[in-house]
Structures are given as structure tokens and as C-alpha cells.
């Protein structure tokens, strides 16, 4: 049902939501990287960020699950293993909402290039792997601005899992999907959980217009490609430092 405006309301009623196809209502642009742990996405976004900030571009970098307002609740919930699939999902949505309302949207309106390490697709892939309904998740995050480009880093499951397991003393409880009771062995549980997430990601490639990136390609070669694709999709000049 559409929002009906009772006559006594003087609060401004929001405009109808734009779809991905319509022109954006802000001058900024949103760049997203997605992929399972160990797919190389964070390394690549870091290099992209360094390239842009060294050149003095107007950029902002934001990470999944990092809002200071919601952090203490999430940390306690995870440490004491209080989270269920639903509350896990709701808390991450609250975290995202805080970053969205206080950082991402104001910066997009202020003409920034916003770089996001993980975005709503992480919730779609991961929370659905925990049993949340995809339809419910899509609604939950329907307030999020649609990215201008979403790089999806894909590496074979074993490659990605080995990268994480090799460099980590211990996998965390929720990270390994231990709450799902798949396996008592953390590494095994992690592998099966990541496999489910990978399959959920793959299903979004077409529906959400992911740009597929091969996570097994050499780092500098892949970065070169990423910069090229970004330049083709987004007019980077508008974020460049103003000449005096």
C-alpha cells in the first residue's frame, strides 16, 4: 500500500523509490565489492582505494559490520552466542542502516565516490544460507541505494577456503557457521557454510548485475582490470581534485 498522507502531517513525505533503471537522485557513485571470504575482494578494493586517494579523489571507504552505534550489541551477541538467524540478520541490518543513513547516503548526496567492502548482497547470500527467507531479506534491505557497479570476486571454493584457514589461528563461531550445527569441526563447517554462500552469490550474478572478477588472477593484473572497468562504468573525472 502506498503511503497516504493524513492531512495533519507536516513532515515531508518521501518520494517514491527509484529502481535501478532510473536515473539516480544524487551526484555521487557507489562501488561495491562482494564475494566469499578469501576471494580477494578486500585486497582489490584496498588497492583501488589507495590508487584513488593517492590521486586526491573525493572518496569514502566503508566496511560491512562496522557501525560504532551497533558494534557493542553485535560483539556481545557473537561472544556469548546469543544470535539466532533472525537476530543475526536484524543486527547486521541495523548496522548497515546506521552507516547508510549517517555516511553512505549523505556522502552520495555530497558527490562522493563511496567504496563499500561488502554490501547488502553479503546479507542476501549469508543470511539465506542460515535459513532466512530470501524474500524477507530483500524487503529488509530495500532502503539501500543500488550500487553503480558491483564487482563480484569469485575464486574456487577450495582456493578461497585454504587462503582463510591457512592464515587463521582459529575460525570464529559465527564465521564458521557453527550455529547451524552442520559439523562439529570448525574447518569443515566453515567449508560447507562458504559453499552455500558461494552458491547464493552465483544466483545473484544476473539478477543484480554483478561484474564477475576471477579471484585466481594475479593481484596486479586483476587490479589493472578493475581500474579499467571502473573507468568505463563511472565518470571518474567528477571525483577528481579540483584544479586551482
Amino acid at each position: 500500500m502506498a503511503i497516504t498522507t493524513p492531512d495533519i502531517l507536516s513532515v515531508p513525505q518521501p518520494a517514491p523509490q527509484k529502481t535501478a533503471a532510473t536515473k539516480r537522485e544524487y551526484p555521487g557513485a557507489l562501488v561495491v565489492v562482494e564475494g566469499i571470504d578469501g576471494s580477494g575482494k578486500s585486497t582489490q578494493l584496498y588497492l583501488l582505494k589507495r590508487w584513488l586517494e593517492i590521486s586526491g579523489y573525493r572518496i569514502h571507504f566503508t566496511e560491512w559490520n562496522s557501525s560504532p552505534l551497533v558494534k557493542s550489541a553485535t560483539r556481545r551477541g557473537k561472544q556469548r552466542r546469543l544470535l539466532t538467524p533472525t537476530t543475526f540478520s536484524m543486527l547486521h541490518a541495523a548496522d548497515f542502516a546506521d552507516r547508510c543513513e549517517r555516511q553512505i547516503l549523505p556522502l552520495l548526496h555530497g558527490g562522493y565516490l563511496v567504496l563499500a567492502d561488502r554490501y547488502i548482497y553479503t546479507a542476501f547470500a549469508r543470511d539465506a544460507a542460515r535459513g532466512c527467507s530470501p524474500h524477507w531479506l530483500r524487503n529488509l534491505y530495500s532502503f539501500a541505494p543500488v550500487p553503480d557497479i558491483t564487482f563480484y570476486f569469485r575464486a574456487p571454493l577450495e582456493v578461497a577456503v585454504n587462503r582463510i584457514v591457512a592464515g587463521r589461528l582459529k575460525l570464529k563461531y559465527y564465521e564458521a557457521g557453527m550455529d547451524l550445527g552442520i559439523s562439529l569441526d570448525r574447518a569443515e563447517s566453515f567449508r560447507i557454510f562458504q559453499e552455500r554462500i558461494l552458491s547464493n552469490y552465483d544466483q545473484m550474478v544476473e539478477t543484480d548485475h554483478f561484474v564477475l572478477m576471477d579471484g585466481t588472477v594475479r593481484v596486479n593484473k586483476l587490479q589493472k582490470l578493475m581500474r579499467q572497468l571502473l573507468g568505463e562504468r563511472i565518470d571518474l573525472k567528477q571525483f577528481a581534485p579540483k584544479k586551482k
Partner: protein
Amino acid sequence: MKPPRAQSKPDVPPNGRPSKHAKKNGNGAARFYGIPMPGVRTEDLSGSLIVVEGTDGSGRSTQISLLTEWLESEGFAVQTMGLRRSFLVGEDIDALLAENAVTRMTLALMYGTDFFDQLERRILPALRSGLIVLADRYIFTLIARAAVRGIGRDYLHGIYEIALRPNLTFWLNVRPEVAFDREFKKSQTISYWESGRDMSLSNDLFQSFIRYQSMIKREFEYLSKRHGFIELDGEGSVSEVNRVLRRRIASHLGIRSTHYKPSHALAHLWR
């Protein structure tokens, strides 16, 4: 921020009429609005969930204290719930409200987290044990508060479609002016959030309170139709409102509506 909208129409039919969805899922799911929240057992919910809704100053908490005593004296075990009482995030919300950094969507989703945590850890286990759960507010207050701040109603219903449908939902309806008198008498001032001061409606606290509570009331009028609330005149005397509540609850539980007079401990509420 753009108003969030549901991607498609959420399946939230009015009270008492199970959705097609619920029927398909068998009896176990019949008491949820749509697909139940993941990972919960939905069978064996033999208890009753009774919700009392109403704005601040509508007399909700008073009635819940009295109903608890009455039900216990009749031999029914009672569990209560209310907003911000979850172990998971109850105190975090208190902290968010104390500073003014929090924005409307974050607050709405934190309240949602608080609600679902209580639903999974408090309400469902109690209902499985055959208890009567008295809810001092439920999803409807959360929907109304967020909706008056411009968050889409269908978006909000979409979030709560995985929630449990109450057996009875009472709405204690009072005029904002009456609510103001009662609230002021209680605390000698009006709180920031009760008067909707985050919405910049008026610099005058009274005006702000009246306008905000009028908006909430309108949302409740809409919700009442959509979900089949039992609307009661919250301006009646405590004993009169309580009598009507007991009659409806007794009928739901299949017991005779018995005479009730509050104990000494609660006698001060009986006006």
C-alpha cells in the same frame, strides 16, 4: 532517505484469519503471519499470546499488572514482555535513545532485533509450556512509530511477517490530551521521544506531544482495521477497562469471568 517499500505484498492478513500460507504449512505455522522465522519449532504452542497496545498514558502497564494478578489467582502462569526488555539489545537501545546520534531506520531495526530476541527466547518457549504471555505493546507500536517517521508500512509489515500472530490484541484508545495529562502527572514533564521531538513538529512541548500522538493514533486506526484489534475506551476508569479486558480474556480461555478485586499491593491502581 528513500522510503523503503516491500518488494511485493507481504502476507499479513488480519487477526484470526490464517493466511493461505499458514494453512499450507499446517497447524504448526497457522499462528504466524507468513513464513515463520527460521530455525524455530512452530508446533505445540499451547499457550495464549495476549497483546495490550496503546500510546503512552493509555493505562497499558496498569492493566497488565492487574491482569497478571487476576490470571495468577485463576491459576494461569503468566509471562510478560515489553519493548527494550531483551537481553540481547535492550540496554543498547536505552543507550541509543540517550544520545541523539541514532537515525530512524537504525532505531526501527534495533527495536526489531529486540522484539525478535524476546519472541524467540521468551514468548515462544513460554507458549510451548502453556503459559499466557501478556505483551505490553507488540509489533504494532513499532510499526506505528516507524511509519509516522516516513518508513513504508508495507516495508514494516514485511519485516514482521515472520512474527507470531497474537490470540487477542487490545487497543486502549485515549485522546492525546488525556494522555498528556496522565503522563505529565506521572513524571512532571514529557520525555523527548514521547513527544516526538526528533521530528521537529513544534518547539512547544505540549504542541509537539499532541501532534506526535495524533499521528501515532492515526496509524493505530489503520492498524486496528488491518489486524482486527479489540478497541477499548482507555479513558474509562481502571476498573471498568479491566472488567472488559477480563471478560474478553475469560471468553478466549474458556473460563467463567470471575469477580476480581486487586490485592492490597495493587489497590492503589484501582481507580
